[in-house]
């Protein structure tokens, strides 16, 4: 018997008969929280969000209430709210479903948030490939406008705010909040350096700006409904609310599954919820939070102390799925993209695939990233092409170590962490690859073998 999901954000996703129009949403209790929100004091909503402990669902896991607290309200400049719907971390596919199937939940969450921070104007930055999602959002916004749920004098409250849907055009770096802001301003999405460019102080058009993920903004609606305290009761202290785990790769039932934080372990998620691996296959590795998260090896033992001081000694299957536990085992919950790999996976090829991605997506602004990430791609490509050298593993680690921490934005880390963790945990396979190729060459055979992942 599979463990039952407990859906909050995805409550109506895939529900038979549930449609993405406003009438259906209202019939299911939609926009009641916005009606409540506009009668509250904006600062009280901010206090509830802070008390809820909700952490950003886009990747970094920074407390949203704290982000809002940093907002510069005294500058006299207009305040902007931006919804990050650039969903492009490989392995993540939750925001897409919210936009396609329940767009009004996002709009309600956004308008509650916009009112709380007293935003003058709000944006949804949607990735360019979501052609249908863009049309759905545009229609949903018009429906909401007709019912005075956004636009001028919302529900007679005297507060006005509009939403502009802004489309990206295929660049991963736009998911980085300052890159996203540059993109809305009509520039290349080169991220800005922090300090001084913390969006809460100097964001869009150099005005105070809050950038939140789609799922985080939906959470705000539920925080108003449940109260900050009520929301914090879901999950565990420091890991509040639910998470939508997007499982892909070598499992029988890939898909999105929502649970309170810590409610399932990685083992339960893979074997119980997702029906386990393909017949006859064994688990080899898991990337738990989108492709930039550090990889976990199936036979590792994870020991250490949690934030609250409790000691842990876990196998991969025992890891509770939440922010702090995944951080404690040296990885991260990131955007919730769980990529599962079985024992048929060639780790050199898998890393070559990941390196291809990051080399393609580097914005080119910082030298270590612009030069280093394509260099790592070239090395792993050469390895799968039959020119692997025994020292390549060390070379890769060396390059990655010189990128991480030396770039303007976290992309440097995002591109380095896979390399560092693959080498730390599967170095023997990288060396083995070189030896096998050398042996085949000696026998007069082609050094390279057929690849499947690159």
């Amino acid at each position, binding site marked *: 018997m599979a463990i039952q999901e407990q859906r909050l954000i995805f409550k109506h996703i895939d529900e038979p008969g549930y449609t993405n129009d406003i009438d259906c949403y209202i019939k299911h209790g939609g926009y009641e929280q916005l009606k409540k929100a506009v009668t509250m004091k904006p600062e009280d909503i901010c206090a509830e969000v802070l008390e809820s402990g909700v952490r950003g669902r886009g990747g970094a896991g920074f407390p949203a209430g704290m982000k809002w607290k940093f907002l510069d309200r005294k500058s006299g400049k207009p305040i902007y709210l931006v919804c990050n719907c650039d969903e492009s971390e490989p392995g993540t596919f939750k925001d897409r479903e919210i936009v396609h199937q329940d767009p009004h939940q996002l709009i309600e969450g956004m308008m509650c948030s916009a009112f709380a921070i007293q935003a003058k104007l709000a944006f949804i930055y949607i990735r360019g490939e979501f052609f249908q999602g863009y049309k759905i959002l545009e229609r949903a916004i018009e429906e909401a406008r007709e019912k005075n749920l956004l636009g001028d004098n919302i529900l007679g409250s005297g507060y006005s705010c509009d939403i502009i849907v802004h489309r990206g055009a295929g660049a991963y770096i736009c998911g980085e909040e300052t890159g996203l802001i540059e993109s809305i301003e009509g520039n290349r999405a080169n991220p800005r350096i922090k300090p001084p460019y913390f969006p809460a102080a100097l964001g869009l058009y150099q005005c105070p700006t809050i950038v939140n993920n789609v799922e985080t903004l939906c959470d705000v609606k539920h925080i108003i409904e449940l109260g900050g305290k009520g929301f914090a009761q879901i999950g565990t202290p420091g890991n509040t609310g639910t998470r939508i785990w997007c499982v*892909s790769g070598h499992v029988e039932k890939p898909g999105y599954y929502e649970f309170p934080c810590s409610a399932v372990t990685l083992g339960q998620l893979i074997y119980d919820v997702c029906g386990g691996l393909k017949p006859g296959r064994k688990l080899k590795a898991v990337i738990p939070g989108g492709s930039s998260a550090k990889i976990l090896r199936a036979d590792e033992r994870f020991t250490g102390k949690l934030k609250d001081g409790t000691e842990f000694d876990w196998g991969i299957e025992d890891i509770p799925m939440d922010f702090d536990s995944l951080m404690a085992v040296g990885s991260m919950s990131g955007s919730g993209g769980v990529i599962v790999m079985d024992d048929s996976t060639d780790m050199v090829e898998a890393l070559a695939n990941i390196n291809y991605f990051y080399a393609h997506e580097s914005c080119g602004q910082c030298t270590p990233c612009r030069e280093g990430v394509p260099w790592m791609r070239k090395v792993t490509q050469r390895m799968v092409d039959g020119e692997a050298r025994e020292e390549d593993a060390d070379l890769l680690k060396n390059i990655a170590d010189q990128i991480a921490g030396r770039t303007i934005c976290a992309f440097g880390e995002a591109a380095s962490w896979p390399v560092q963790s693959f080498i730390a945990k599967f170095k023997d396979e990288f060396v083995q690859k070189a030896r096998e190729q050398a042996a085949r060459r000696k026998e007069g055979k082609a050094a390279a073998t057929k690849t499947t992942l690159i």
Partner: protein
Amino acid sequence: MNLKPETIEKIDKLVPRYPTVKSAALPLCHLVQEDQGYLSNEAMEWIANRLDLQPINILELVTFYPMLRTEPTGKHHVRVCRTLPCALAGAYQTCKKLEEAFNCKVGHTSEDGSVTLEFVECHADCGKAPVVMVGEDEYTNISPDKASEFAEKIKNGEI
């Protein structure tokens, strides 16, 4: 430049919504590309003019954002996701089958101009990998064994 009246209408409605004109540059690139199929030098100059910017301000966007094109695509624009979750589900083998079916190497347009076949990065639907886009529509679970049939449907105009 001959833009359709509905494109002009969309542009005229969109530009004043933004706090600065430059913010409208990327949306205008999308609208003009959808109208013309690609962004020619003339198109980039037109956008720059419309927004009181320099052509370089548009060119630097076109050369940065992968979805903006300076050449037209074939009649069918087929984009295969090759990122890890899709690759684990066989995207590279799917693409190989499509290459054979269309007689067109990935990254190119077929000689008869019927298909442009491209690899793209993660399209955020990894639970239904491999993912293939044809034009603006997404098709999921296109495993290697379904690829040839899928290609036939594109050729026949069913997709």
